[in-house]
């Protein structure tokens, strides 16, 4: 092929300036090696172009969507995309990543773009149309005010049914900080991105891509895919054992998301029920039945409504429930709904844990038919409104403020507008629509819940909520747990501190829930993170040690890596496998092997981890430039005391038990502070402050960040040199990977 062919990357990023109307295109070649794509590109562009201290609703803020070299390339689970913008709901408006699946990322790539920079602000409603090389700003006045469903339908009607429409709903238009961007019915890019687009008057991004992703070694991509699917990949969250005892399986675990079994059906499938059966490792054509997510999330009554599973572009693990619930259609007008995350079970997993609703479970505690209706009414409603929940915080906050009388006190006359009695009696699921609509439209008082706990706890005088274990708030800057201390104690706690929102890291929780016995996990932990004591059994945690720090570091860098490549971190990395013949070992080198096969550039796993560390450190340094200190002055590098402050309840829960006793995941204050310092050291950051050091910035080649930090008086000396703090991951599981086609070369 010709020398100018770009493999993996499309090679270009589109830039749309809404103020000037200028549309341009620029090469991303210089960023490829160091920042990979996706989160890396988006963070680099935000750092370069959006000055620290910018407010989220200022025209100077940008929304940057990016994909990576593996997006749409045929690599399994390569369908995700990452946006970056400034936070609308956490402290100081610092940079956040908004991840989404669906079809958006792949379509963008196929249009010939690795990214889209949306800058400036339009005076009138617009949408951005990308039809391969043709990019235009179009009038959106006809769809302004409409839900994401009608918007999508109208724009697909106009531009082609094969388009991917990523749209905001009323929440984004009305600048609700909890607004998201929805593509492909129910795939959400959250963290307030919808409000940022709403402020810019961007109703939607419409993408149609008919081009290809050039692949340097297509045969190797195919061979690696076959190998991975045959023996390495498990189910959703890479759970590698089935949830019920099955003749082929040595282990089973009832918590596993490998939920297929004989007698469990996609019961509403066209033409008659389709049995999920017993899909086994080595059967590529049954992979998509392993994760029966509707009944896993919504209970046995959901089976009869289940048409099929679906999910993101490029993924053979089909984790997305697609249900048709007649009562939901009656209430919302929408015949299909379903999700794989919080919107699949918002009521019964997050609301009723605080405020019970009658009739959600039967006498045995099994979820009822009515609970399916409740969950899916909320699901269809929030998707259409483009309303994000801050990883379920909205439902916890709603339940809490109702139960404690805060809503009744604060809403005044508006409180009586909602049928709370019917809602809680289990007789009026439609009450959800009224409540959620008013939150999304951002006019009634109840919408303050959609500003996040940073705002409403202050206005409604309820700061104590942060310190209540039931709140699940993990950081005072305004975000909740996303697999925190219950996931390997300090490991989960540490990575929950890293970003400016909930972490969305699944590398560790996948390992925790994979279903393999703890003794085997400990053997695997030794191979991967240097010590069996990297992981403990649930609620039997031990004090911090080097292997746990390594595990936490690895969880962070693999997540950042996947958000950059882009691969799905809800399943990747391949730390374990369902195949007994390989002793259940995964294959940690697959990312690097796929990267090389797709791009033609030789890399090792350690090269990629280093690039991910660079991206994490860039976000960290960029955050410190905009972070305010206790006095409110901008520019602060004391992450330990200002940013990485875990909420008090983790130290105070289970009052009858001490930290490290069996039966609790309670944390110890001194141990936590020690753990922070050890993790900082592992990243080359300052061991006291947790900020990037001159040494680590030099090691990672972050010269621009270094000079900006220096100028702001935030640059510190010290830091452990890269070679002294890192260890080698490439090939650590190679002994188990005899069938890996890249090793056969």
């Amino acid at each position, binding site marked *: 092929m010709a020398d100018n062919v770009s493999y993996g990357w499309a090679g270009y990023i589109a830039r749309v300036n809404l103020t000037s109307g200028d549309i341009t295109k620029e090469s991303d070649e210089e960023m490829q090696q160091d920042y990979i794509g996706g989160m890396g590109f988006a963070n680099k562009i935000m750092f370069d172009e959006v000055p620290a201290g910018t407010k989220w609703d200022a025209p100077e803020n940008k929304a940057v969507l990016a994909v990576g070299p593996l997006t749409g390339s045929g690599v399994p689970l390569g369908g995700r995309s990452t946006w970056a913008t400034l936070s609308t709901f956490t402290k100081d408006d610092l940079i956040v990543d908004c991840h989404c699946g669906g079809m958006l990322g792949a379509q963008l790539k196929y249009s010939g773009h690795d990214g889209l920079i949306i800058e400036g602000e339009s005076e009138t409603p617009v949408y951005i149309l990308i039809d391969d090389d043709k990019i235009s700003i179009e009038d959106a006045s006809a769809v302004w005010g409409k839900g994401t*469903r009608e918007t999508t339908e109208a724009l697909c009607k106009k531009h082609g049914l094969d388009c991917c429409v990523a749209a905001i709903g009323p929440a984004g238009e009305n600048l609700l900080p909890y607004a998201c961007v929805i593509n492909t*019915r129910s795939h959400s890019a959250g963290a307030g991105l919808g409000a940022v687009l709403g402020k810019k008057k961007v109703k939607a991004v419409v993408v149609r891509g008919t081009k290809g992703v050039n692949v340097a070694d297509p045969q190797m991509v195919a061979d690696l895919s*076959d190998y991975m699917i045959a023996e390495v990949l498990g189910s959703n969250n890479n759970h590698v054992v089935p949830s019920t005892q099955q003749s082929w399986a040595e282990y089973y675990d009832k918590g596993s998301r490998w939920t297929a079994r004989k007698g469990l059906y996609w019961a509403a499938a066209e033409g008659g029920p*389709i049995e999920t059966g017993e899909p086994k490792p080595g059967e590529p054509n049954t992979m998509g039945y392993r994760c029966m997510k509707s009944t896993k999330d919504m209970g046995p009554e959901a089976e009869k409504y289940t048409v099929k599973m679906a999910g993101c572009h490029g993924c053979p693990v089909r984790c997305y429930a697609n249900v048709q619930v007649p009562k939901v259609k009656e209430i919302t007008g929408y015949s299909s709904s379903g999700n794989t995350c919080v919107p699949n079970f918002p009521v019964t997993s997050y609301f009723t844990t605080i405020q019970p609703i009658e009739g959600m479970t039967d006498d045995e505690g099994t979820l009822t038919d009515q609970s399916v209706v409740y969950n899916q009414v909320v699901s269809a409603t929030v998707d259409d409104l483009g309303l994000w929940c801050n990883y379920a915080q909205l439902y916890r906050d709603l339940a809490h403020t109702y139960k404690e009388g805060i809503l009744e006190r604060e809403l005044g006359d508006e409180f009586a507008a909602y049928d709370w009695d019917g809602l809680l009696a289990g007789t009026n699921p439609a009450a959800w*629509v009224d409540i959620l609509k008013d939150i999304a439209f951002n006019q009634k008082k109840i919408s303050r819940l959609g500003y996040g706990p940073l705002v409403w706890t202050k206005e409604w005088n309820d700061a104590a909520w942060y310190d209540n274990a039931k709140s699940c708030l993990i950081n005072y800057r305004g975000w909740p747990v996303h697999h925190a201390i219950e996931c390997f104690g300090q490991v989960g706690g540490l990575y929950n501190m890293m970003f400016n929102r909930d972490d969305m890291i699944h590398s560790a929780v996948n390992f925790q829930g994979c279903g393999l016995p703890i003794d085997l996990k400990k053997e695997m932990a030794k191979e991967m993170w240097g010590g069996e004591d990297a992981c403990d059994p649930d609620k039997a945690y031990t004090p911090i040690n080097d292997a746990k720090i390594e595990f936490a570091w690895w969880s962070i860098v693999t997540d950042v890596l996947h958000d950059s490549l882009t691969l799905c971190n809800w399943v990747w990395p391949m730390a374990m496998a369902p195949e007994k013949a390989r002793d259940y070992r995964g294959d940690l080198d697959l990312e690097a092997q796929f990267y090389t096969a797709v791009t033609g550039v030789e890399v090792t796993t350690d090269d990629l981890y280093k690039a991910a560390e660079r991206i994490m450190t860039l976000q960290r340094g960029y955050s410190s430039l905009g972070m305010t200190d206790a006095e409110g002055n901008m520019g602060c590098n004391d992450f330990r005391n200002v940013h990485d402050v875990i909420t008090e309840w983790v130290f105070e829960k289970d009052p009858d038990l001490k930290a490290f006793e069996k039966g609790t995941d309670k944390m110890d204050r001194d141990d936590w502070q020690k753990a922070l310092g050890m993790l900082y050291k592992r990243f080359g950051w300052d061991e006291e402050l947790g900020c990037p050091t001159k040494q680590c910035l030099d090691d990672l080649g972050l010269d621009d960040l270094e000079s900006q930090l220096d100028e702001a008086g935030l640059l510190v000396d010290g830091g452990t040199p890269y070679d002294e703090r890192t260890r080698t991951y490439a090939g650590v599981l190679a002994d188990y990977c005899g069938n890996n086609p890249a090793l056969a070369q």
Partner: protein
Amino acid sequence: MKENTALEHVGSGADRLDAFFTRRGFVKVSGAFVATMAALGLLPETAAAAPTSSKGKIDYYATPSHVLKVNRARCTGCQRCEMSCTLKNDGNSQPAAARLHVHDGYNYGKELGSGDGIYYSCEWTIRACHMCTTAMCQTACPHGAIVTDESTGVRSVDPEKCVGCGTCVAACPYHMPVVNSVTHKSTKCIACGRCAEQCPNGAIELIEWENVNHSSGPTRQENPDPLISESQDYVGGGKVA
């Protein structure tokens, strides 16, 4: 519950020549020969009409060795078939140029108002080449660019001859061929089976060609829901004030 079998469909219904020519039979004939055969009443009119183009070199009596059998109720829309197809046959990942089509129906089915797609029935059709015995794509090609493999009877596009005019796309009753937007060459299914190998749900199978001359599975809902865009602005029937 009874296992789902209702939706499998095979072939095109355009296979009436098989009574005359044996399965996998392969006869290289000229237009004149066909005209004579038709005049003698040995061929149906469709066959006689077929070879009016393609420079008289028509291999249309070859019955392909294999065909894809699809079940749309099993399809979960992941596009691994489309990517695997192009990785194998084109050396890149380009779903829009794949030789079978899933994604174009994923949102709304074959057309808006069909009642299909993830916004409505959650069903959409896997559009695969019917491997017609009389292949209209081939007979219509003004450049003779769709050629038959003598051992398998499967037609493929000769990129050297193809000029990307799109006549084959229009001629195919199912509009299966695609003119690749980058190479400007047409593509059609060659029954390699790579899509089926990679389907995580077994919704596609490569089977030995059979004259299964029955109707396809559904390609739309009998009673489709009214379109959202014609009935409501946002959830619950809300209308903008």
